[in-house]
C-alpha cells in the first residue's frame, strides 16, 4: 500500500488534502473567530475558490493518468489496523473537481442571497462544513471514514434544511431528512460490517479495486466465498440491500425519496448545492464506488427501481405548483435516471449524467432562487399574503429578469436534453445503453428503456410548463393586484456571475467538442469497462432523433396549452391527476402507517415497561410488602398479642384492684369492715 510516492505525487495528494481541508479551515475560522460578521461569507468563498482551483489542478494531474493512494495508520482495534487515507482515482477527482467548482458559484450567490438574513454567519459555517464533508467523502479510501463523512454530509444537510429553525415546517423537514438518511446510514453500516466480516478490511481500494477482494470472490452453493473467508450468500444480498438503502436515502430513490421535496424548506442556494447538485449525487457516487459488489440480479433491481423512481417523480412534477418542489421532483427523477443507468451497466453515462445534471440543476435552482427572492421583495414591499414559490402567481418575468430568463432556458433545455446542451450528451448515452441492455432479454426488461424514454418526454413537459408559467404570459400577481409596485431585476453581480458561469457549463463544449455524439465526450473515456463505444446499431441514431423530435413536440404542446390557451386541457379532477398532485400518496402512507406504527409500538412498549416490567417489579414489591405486612400483623397480633394479652390481664387486674383505691377513707373502711364481717359470718357458720 505504502509504496513510496514520487515527489509530484506527494504534492498532488497534499493539494487534494488542502482542497478538502480548506473549507474546514473556513468553518473553524468562522466558528471561532468571526461569529456573525459578514466576513464569514468571504472567508468561505475564498476557501472554496482555492479548493476549486486545487481540485481542478488535482483533476488534471490524476485524470486518466494514475491512481494515487496514500494512507496512515489511524488506530488499531484488536488485530485490525484502521488506516485513514486518500484515494485519488478518476471517480474521486471528478467528483472533487465537480463539487468544488459547483460550490463556488453557489457561495458567491449566497453572499448576496443570504445578505439580509440574521443567520448569515451560521449559514456560511454550515455551508463550509458541508463542502468539507462532501469533498472528504469523495476522496477517502476507507469505508469507515466514508461512512463517517457520508453521515456528516447528511448532518450538514440537516443543519441547512433546518436553517430557519423557527419555522415548524423546516424543522419537521430536516428531522424527516435526517431520519430517512439514517435508514440509509444503517443500511450502509450493515453493508460495511458485512464487508468487514467477509474481508477483514475497510480499505476501499483493496475491496473494490480492479483486482480487489470483491472481484475475486464468488457466490457458490449458497456461500459467499472470498479470498479470506466465506459467509452465507444471503449476506451478500443483505450487503447489497444495505447499500441500496443508503443510495435510496441519499439520492432520494423510491421508497426513501420523500424527504427531498420537503428539504426545499432550506434556503434555495442550499437546495441548489446540496439537494440538487452534490449531496444527492453521493448515492450515485457510492454506487460507482461499490459497483464491483453488485451481481447481475442486483443491477437489474437497481435499474428497475431507478426507472420507477424517475417515472414516478416525473409524473409528480407535472402537477406541482411549488417552484422548488417541481425542481425537487425533477431532481429525484434525474437521480433515478442515473441509478437506472448504473443498473443497466451504463456506468460511465451515469457519472456523466451526474456531472452534467449537477450543473444544470444547480443553475435551475439558482434561477428559482432569484425568482423567489424577487417575488418575495414584491411581497414584502406590498404586504401581500402569497406564497412566493407558487408558480400560479408568476408569469411574464422574462422582461423583468432577462438574464435569469436566458439562464433558465439554457438550464431547462439541458434538463430536457436537447442538442447543443450537456444534458443531451449524457441523457442520450443512458437511453441508448439501456436499450442495448434490454436487447436480447424478454419483454419485461424492455420496460426500463421504454419508461426512460417516456420519462424524457414527461421531463420536457414539466420543464416547459415551469418556464412558461414563470417567464411567459403576463404577471398574474399584477393582474390580481393591479396596484402593486414592482421594481425587480436580475440583481447584483453576485447573482449574475454564478448564473453565467453555470450556464456556460451547461453547454456542450465543456464536455465534448462534438455536440451530437456522446461517445466523444472526454468524461466518457475516463471510466473503465465501456464496451459499446462503437456505433454498432440503430439505437445510436434513432433514439436521439426520436427523443428530440418528440420532446420538441411536447414542448410545443405545453406552449399551446399554457400560453395560447388552446381548448384541450388535462382533466384536473381525474384519478391520475390527484395521484400526481398528492405525490402518489407515498408520504401520506408513511405518516399514516409507518410513523404511526412506530409511535404506537413505542407507546405500547412504554406501557409494557410501566405496567408489565415495572408492574412485575411493583408486584413483587407489593407481594413483599404484603408478606412483610402479614409478618408484621402476625408479629403484632399473635406474638405481641400474647404479650399484650398478658399485659392486659395484669392491667385489668390492676385496674380492677385499683378501683378500690380511690382515695376514699370511708370506702376503705367500709370494705375492710365488710370483709371482716364476712369472715365473722363464715366463722360463725363454720363454728356452728
Amino acid at each position: 500500500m505504502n509504496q513510496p510516492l514520487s515527489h509530484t505525487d506527494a504534492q498532488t495528494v497534499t493539494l487534494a488534502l488542502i482542497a478538502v481541508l480548506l473549507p474546514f479551515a473556513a468553518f473553524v475560522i468562522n466558528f471561532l473567530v468571526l461569529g456573525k460578521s459578514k466576513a464569514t461569507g468571504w472567508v468561505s468563498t475564498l476557501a472554496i475558490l482555492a479548493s476549486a482551483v486545487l481540485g481542478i489542478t488535482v483533476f488534471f494531474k490524476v485524470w486518466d493518468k494514475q491512481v494515487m493512494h496514500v494512507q496512515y495508520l489511524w488506530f488499531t482495534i484488536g488485530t485490525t489496523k484502521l488506516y485513514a487515507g486518500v484515494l485519488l482515482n478518476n471517480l474521486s477527482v471528478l467528483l472533487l473537481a465537480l463539487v468544488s467548482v459547483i460550490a463556488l458559484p453557489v457561495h458567491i450567490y449566497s453572499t448576496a442571497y443570504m445578505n439580509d438574513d440574521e443567520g448569515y454567519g451560521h449559514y456560511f459555517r454550515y455551508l463550509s462544513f458541508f463542502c468539507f464533508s462532501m469533498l472528504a467523502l469523495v476522496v477517502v479510501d476507507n469505508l469507515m471514514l466514508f461512512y463517517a463523512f457520508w453521515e456528516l454530509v447528511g448532518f450538514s444537510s440537516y443543519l441547512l434544511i433546518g436553517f430557519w429553525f423557527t419555522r415548524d415546517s423546516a424543522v419537521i423537514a430536516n428531522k424527516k431528512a435526517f431520519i430517512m438518511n439514517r435508514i440509509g446510514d444503517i443500511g450502509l453500516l450493515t453493508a460495511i460490517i458485512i464487508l468487514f466480516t467477509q474481508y477483514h478490511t475497510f480499505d476501499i481500494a483493496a475491496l473494490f479495486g480492479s483486482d480487489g477482494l470483491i472481484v475475486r470472490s464468488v457466490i457458490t452453493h449458497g456461500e459467499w466465498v472470498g479470498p479470506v473467508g466465506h459467509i452465507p450468500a444471503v449476506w451478500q444480498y443483505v450487503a447489497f440491500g444495505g447499500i441500496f438503502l443508503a443510495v435510496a436515502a441519499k439520492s432520494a430513490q423510491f421508497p426513501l425519496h420523500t424527504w427531498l421535496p420537503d428539504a426545499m424548506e432550506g434556503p434555495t442556494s442550499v437546495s441548489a448545492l446540496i439537494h440538487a447538485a452534490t449531496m444527492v449525487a453521493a448515492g450515485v457516487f457510492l454506487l460507482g464506488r461499490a459497483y464491483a459488489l453488485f451481481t447481475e440480479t442486483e443491477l437489474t433491481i437497481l435499474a428497475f427501481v431507478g426507472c420507477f423512481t424517475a417515472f414516478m417523480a416525473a409524473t409528480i412534477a407535472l402537477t406541482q405548483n411549488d417552484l422548488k418542489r417541481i425542481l425537487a421532483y425533477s431532481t429525484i427523477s434525474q437521480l433515478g435516471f442515473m441509478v437506472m443507468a448504473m443498473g443497466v451497466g451504463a456506468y460511465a453515462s451515469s457519472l456523466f449524467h451526474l456531472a452534467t445534471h449537477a450543473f444544470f440543476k444547480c443553475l435551475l435552482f439558482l434561477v428559482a432562487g432569484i425568482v423567489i427572492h424577487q417575488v418575495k421583495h414584491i411581497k414584502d414591499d406590498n404586504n401581500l399574503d402569497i406564497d412566493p414559490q407558487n408558480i400560479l402567481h408568476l408569469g411574464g418575468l422574462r422582461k423583468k429578469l432577462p438574464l435569469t430568463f436566458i439562464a433558465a432556458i439554457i438550464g431547462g433545455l439541458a434538463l430536457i436534453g436537447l442538442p447543443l446542451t450537456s444534458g443531451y450528451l449524457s441523457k442520450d448515452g443512458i437511453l441508448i445503453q439501456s436499450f442495448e441492455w434490454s436487447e436480447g432479454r424478454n419483454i419485461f426488461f424492455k420496460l426500463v428503456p421504454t419508461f426512460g424514454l417516456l420519462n424524457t418526454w414527461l421531463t420536457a413537459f414539466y420543464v416547459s410548463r415551469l418556464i412558461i408559467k414563470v417567464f411567459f404570459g403576463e404577471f398574474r400577481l399584477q393582474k390580481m393586484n393591479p396596484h402593486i409596485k414592482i421594481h425587480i431585476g436580475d440583481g447584483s453581480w453576485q447573482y449574475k456571475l454564478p448564473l453565467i458561469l453555470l450556464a456556460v457549463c451547461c453547454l456542450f463544449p465543456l464536455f465534448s467538442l462534438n455536440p451530437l455524439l456522446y461517445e466523444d465526450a472526454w468524461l466518457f473515456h475516463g471510466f473503465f469497462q465501456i464496451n459499446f463505444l462503437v456505433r454498432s446499431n440503430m439505437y445510436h441514431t434513432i433514439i436521439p432523433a426520436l427523443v428530440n423530435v418528440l420532446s420538441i413536440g411536447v414542448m410545443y404542446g405545453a406552449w399551446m396549452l399554457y400560453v395560447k390557451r388552446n381548448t384541450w386541457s388535462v382533466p384536473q379532477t381525474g384519478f391520475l391527476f390527484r395521484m400526481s398532485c398528492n405525490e402518489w400518496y407515498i408520504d401520506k402512507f408513511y405518516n399514516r402507517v409507518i410513523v404511526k406504527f412506530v409511535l404506537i409500538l413505542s407507546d405500547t412498549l412504554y406501557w409494557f415497561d410501566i405496567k408489565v416490567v415495572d408492574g412485575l417489579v411493583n408486584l413483587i414489591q407489593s407481594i413483599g410488602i404484603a408478606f412483610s405486612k402479614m409478618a408484621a400483623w402476625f408479629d403484632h397480633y399473635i406474638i405481641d398479642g400474647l404479650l399484650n394479652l398478658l399485659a392486659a390481664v395484669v392491667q385489668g387486674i390492676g385496674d380492677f384492684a385499683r378501683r378500690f383505691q380511690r382515695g376514699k377513707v370511708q370506702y376503705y373502711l367500709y370494705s375492710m369492715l365488710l370483709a371482716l364481717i364476712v369472715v365473722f359470718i363464715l366463722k360463725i357458720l363454720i363454728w356452728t
Partner: protein
Amino acid sequence: MITLTHFMVVSAGLFCIGLFIIVSKKNAIQVLLGIELMLNAAILNMVAFSRYDRVNNGGQMFALFAIVLAAATTAVALAIILNVYRRYKTINPDEINQLKDQ
C-alpha cells in the same frame, strides 16, 4: 339482776351506731364522733368486766387509759381536721383523695 350480757348488748348497739356514723357520714367531725362512740362502747365492755377483778382493777385501769387516749386522739384528730380544712376547704373525707393516682 343486770348481767354482763346486758352491758354487752348495749355496747354492741353503741358500737354499731358508731360504725354506721363512721361509714356513712360525709363530715370528718361527725366521723370523729362515731369513733368516740365506738371507743365508749369498748370502754363500757371493759368497765362491765372489771367488776370481776377486784384486786387488780384491770378493766377500770384500761378504761381510764382508753379515756385519756381518746382525749389525745381527739385533740390530734381535730388539729388534723382543721389543717385539712385549711388546705382543701372541705372536710368531706371522700374528697380528700390526693394520694390517689390519676
